[in-house]
Every structure is written in structure tokens, then in C-alpha cells.
């Protein structure tokens, strides 16, 4: 199982791009359709005005210690870390919403559909002043407003309560339609899902309709950590593009690439950003981490099951002592 040292390393890893150790080389410009990025459309009112080149932040990052306060010695699943970079780029550089504007009709909306990825969400909300950092210390407690899944009626700045997968995208489509119907054409609706969450059929109702309706104010973000049990043959983005969405697939740890992709939405179509991550895991001490599988000191951990030393788990099958199927 995951050790405390590993978790600490994971926090460091997750925070690495935030701490100024951002590896620009990971950004594969070729995978991003630069032609879709319309810098001119990018609203000067956004929070990152003048900060386009400021991805590496100076000094210690506020999110890492906040995340540790929530964690309080517990183990976090990889989903927490796989989502953190996207959340930070959104709240730091993209979303036009502040603690003072959480009820304003023309605010940007961020809907966390995969509600279990909540620890990083709470940490970012605290870092940005939406909730007091003190709330993080008893997360999940009997008097806490912060559950293991978020409740919009309990947490300022949280747009939807989520936890049951497959609800956020439909709510986001409705939100985008409601803004459009009221002539609120400037605010954007962002909704964050996971690649495994796309298993839920409700998403495909929403993907098809949003494309047909031309919901230009809707951006879906799919954290792709290859956790869907049966995979997405042909890629996640194709599920959207075949329905008329524009798409960008980027390195989910690359803040500049994420920023470009998240603001590269224009025209008359909904937009999806597929943020590819390695399941929030790390490589250390010769340990191999790949596609949601954590291998430590010869032990393979997959889907919560521990396989004895030396055994390799591949595609769900257990193979003895390194033999390949």
C-alpha cells in the first residue's frame, strides 16, 4: 500500500508545477490544435490578465499546505492529485468568479462533476478565499460543511452538489442553456469529469445534445487517467468531436498547455479539454507507475488489490513474476 513517504512525494509532485519546477518540455504543442486558440477572444477581464507567461509561480504554493490540512494523515486516492493542476489553472487564471461574485448572474461557473475529487477542490477554494482555511481541519466531521462530496448549499462557491457520477454534464448543459436564454452571453460554464465517469450513459445524452444545440458557452474538462474499466478506444476526445464539439488534448500537468486549451474556446460549438495525467502517481526508487497501476518495490497495487511481490498486473490479469501474457 501507499506509504506516507509516497504521499508526501505525491503532494510534492502534484505541487511541482505550482512551485516553479514546471517542466515546459512536457507540453506537446503538436497535440494541441493551436489554430483553435484565439488569443484575441481571450477576455481581458479574466484574472490572468498580464500573466500569460507566469505559469511558474514564485515562492511556496498556497495549495500544498492546505491540502495537507484536509488530508490530516489520511491517504488520498490518486484522483485528488490528478485533478489539482486543472483546478488551480481554472481558479487562478481562467474563471471569472471571486468570493465576492459567487451569486452574480454573470459569473463564470465551475461544476465539479466527479465529486470525489474534492480535497483539491476545497484546498483551491480556501486558497482563493471562498472558504476559510479553518474549515479544512475537520473536513468530513459531524459539524463540517465539507463532505467527501461537495454540497452546493453548504459551501460558498460550489455550484453543484455531486458525488453520484454522471450528473454534472447535464446540469452544465442546463446552466449554459439558462444563461443563453437570459441573454447572459459572456459567462462560461466549465464542468470537470473523469474518463471513467464517461461510462455513465447520462454523459452521452448530454454530449450529443450539447453538440447539436451548439452550446458555445460550455467547456467540459475530462481528466484522463486511463481509469475507465473498458477504456475509450479511439480516445476520449473523439466521443465529443463526433458530436460537433471542438477538442484539445493536453498534458494535464502542464499549466500553460491547460491554460491555452481552457481559453481556446470560441465559435459556436461546445469545447472539451482532455487533460491526460498518469493517475497522479509518481515514479520513485525504481518504482514504475503506469495507467493507474502503482508498482512499489515489486508490489503491484491495482484497484485497491495488492498483488504479492514480483507479480505484474496487466490489463486486469495477474501474470506471474514478470511474465508477459
Amino acid at each position, binding site marked *: 500500500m501507499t506509504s506516507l513517504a509516497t504521499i508526501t512525494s505525491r503532494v510534492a509532485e502534484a505541487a511541482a508545477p505550482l512551485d516553479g519546477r514546471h517542466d515546459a518540455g512536457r507540453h506537446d504543442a503538436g497535440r494541441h490544435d493551436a489554430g483553435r486558440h484565439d488569443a484575441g477572444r481571450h477576455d481581458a477581464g479574466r484574472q490572468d490578465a498580464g500573466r500569460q507567461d507566469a505559469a511558474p509561480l514564485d515562492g511556496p504554493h498556497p495549495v500544498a499546505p492546505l491540502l495537507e490540512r484536509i488530508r490530516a494523515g489520511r491517504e488520498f486516492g490518486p484522483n485528488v492529485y490528478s485533478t489539482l493542476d486543472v483546478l488551480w489553472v481554472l481558479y487562478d487564471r481562467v474563471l471569472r468568479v471571486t468570493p465576492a461574485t459567487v451569486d452574480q*448572474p454573470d459569473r463564470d461557473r465551475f461544476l465539479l462533476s466527479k465529486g470525489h475529487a474534492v480535497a483539491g477542490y476545497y484546498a483551491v477554494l480556501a486558497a482563493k478565499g471562498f472558504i476559510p482555511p479553518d474549515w479544512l481541519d475537520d473536513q468530513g466531521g459531524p459539524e463540517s460543511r465539507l463532505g467527501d462530496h461537495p*454540497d*452546493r*448549499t453548504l459551501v460558498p462557491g460550489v*455550484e*453543484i*452538489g455531486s458525488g*453520484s457520477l*454522471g*450528473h454534472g*454534464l*447535464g*446540469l*452544465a*448543459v*442546463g*446552466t*449554459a*442553456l*439558462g*444563461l*443563453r*436564454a*437570459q441573454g*447572459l452571453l459572456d459567462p462560461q460554464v466549465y464542468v470537470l469529469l473523469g474518463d471513467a465517469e464517461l461510462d455513465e*450513459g*447520462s454523459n452521452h*445524452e*448530454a454530449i*450529443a*445534445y450539447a453538440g*447539436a444545440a451548439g452550446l458555445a458557452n460550455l467547456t467540459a474538462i475530462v481528466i484522463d487517467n486511463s481509469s475507465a474499466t473498458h477504456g475509450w478506444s479511439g480516445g476520449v476526445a473523439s466521443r465529443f468531436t463526433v458530436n460537433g464539439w471542438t477538442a484539445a488534448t493536453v498534458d494535464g500537468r502542464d499549466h500553460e498547455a491547460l491554460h491555452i486549451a481552457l481559453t481556446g474556446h470560441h465559435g459556436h460549438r461546445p469545447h472539451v479539454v482532455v487533460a491526460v495525467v498518469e493517475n497522479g502517481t509518481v515514479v520513485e526508487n525504481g518504482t514504475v507507475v503506469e495507467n493507474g497501476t502503482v508498482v512499489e518495490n515489486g508490489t503491484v497495487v491495482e484497484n485497491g488489490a495488492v498483488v504479492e511481490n514480483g507479480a505484474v498486473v496487466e490489463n486486469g490479469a495477474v501474470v506471474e513474476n514478470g511474465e508477459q501474457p
Partner: protein
Amino acid sequence: MRESFVDTTTRLLAENPRTALVLADISADAFAPAARRHPDRVLNVGIREQLMLGVAGGLALTGLRPIVHSYAPFLVERAYEQIKLDLDHQAANAVLVSVGASYDRAAAGRTHLSPADVALFDTLSDWIVHVPGHPAEVPDLLRTTVGGDASAYLRLSTQRNARPYGGDGELVVVRDAGAGAALLVAVGPVLDAALAAAAGLPVTVAYTHRPRPFDTAGLRALAGTEVILVEPYLAGSSARVVAAALADRPHRLLALGVGRAELRRYGSAEDHDRWHGLDPAGLRRSLTGFLTPARV
């Protein structure tokens, strides 16, 4: 009732820019004129009931007042979790309007029957449920619920009484049998059959088109020791409410309605009334059995 719903909703869309309508193909043709006039507020998502409710939740979160409409089983049963989470859990409210009722399209078979819809709303909290008994009751009910902020379910049917009864849903005494009589409460379109069944019996008959919130104050004012419920959906749906309202009184309760068993029979709504004992003769048998003291 569906025509009345379409006409009133079309007017509400024109009168109030906060009103929106979400469809999943059902009745889309009838709303085509409204859709042409209000393309941003008449939204047909196709045959996608989960999305229909999700969209309604999102619309409500932006401040609109969504009306959501389909056949009862597709609106309530298929998308039940969306009602629970995309509306209630978000503290987002909507007006849901169904057609089909328990067995309006009996020949369509089990897939189009929805006797359990009202019971499902009883698993949630604070829903208003209206079961009109006549098309002329629909416009006021729709205007009132859409004009309010609470979540409401309107259960429309092709079955109807001979005349409408207005009011806000408090029990209305239609037949007064005097002191000591049993109280029969008929919900929506079963009233006429209940009146026919009670002819000549010592039974006061009261009507309501609003089973939720049930008029418990009216019930306590009218009820003696014997209470009979006649409901056009799952038998016993309101038994819990009546029992709680009369918990401090010795009383007997007979709860009549649609049975749980899947009959696997087609025919007409009138046939199903008969098979479920909701026709005048069947109700009469139940009433006399209930009111006749058992011989020990």
C-alpha cells in the same frame, strides 16, 4: 388535460420570460408554435430523459422556472435519480407535468403504465403533487405552481370527472351524509366512480386534486372513525399520511387504488379500472365490505 396543459404553458411562456419548458420529444409537436416563438426557452433534448431533468436543474440554477414534461414512467421512474439529485439535492426547483397516469394507454402495456409515480414523490421531501380530475382544473393549478417557487408534480390523465372542482387542494365535501358517516376521500379523476359507489350508503364524499401536501386539517375536521381513500394510483399511497394525521384517534382505514401486481393485460383504461376494483361496482363491493360489521 394535455391540451389544457399545452395551451396554458404556451401562454405562460409568452407572459413570463422566466418560464422555460424542457421536453424529451413527447408533446413536441404540440409545442412547436411556442418553440418557434421562444427557441431559447422551449428546449426539446430528444429522447433523453436523464438529460431532460439535468437540464431542468441547470436552468433552475440560473434562475429560470422550468416545466418538464413527458409520459409519467419516463419523467418520474426513468429519471428518478435526476429528480433526487439534479433538482432536490441542488435546492433547484421545477414543475414536472406528466401524461399517461396509471393506465391511460392500457393497450401500450407495462412500459407506459405508471401507478407508482406519486409514491416515488413520497420518497422525496416537500413536493407538491396535483392530480386534477378535469381539464378545466389544469390552468389554475399550472399557473399557481409555475408562479410559485416550490417543486410540484402535476399528474394529468385522460380519465376525468363530469365536472371540475376548483380550490387550492383543500378537501371539498361533494356529498354530505351527516354526522357519524364514514368519510371517503377521492383524489382526482376517481371522484365520479366513488360518488356512484357511495350512493345510498352512509358515506360522506370529499374531493381533492392535491394529495401532497394532503389537507390533514380538513381530514381531521371531517373524519369520524371510518376513513376510505380512493386514489387513481398505487393503493395505499396516502395511507401513511392519513394514519399519521389520525394517530391520536381510534379509526379504521380502507385504502383503495391501483394494485401492485403486473396484470399483463391490455384493453382500455376502463378495463383496468374494473380489474383494479376502481369502477363503481368494484368500489361498491369494497365499501359495503368495509362498512358491514364482520360476523365473528
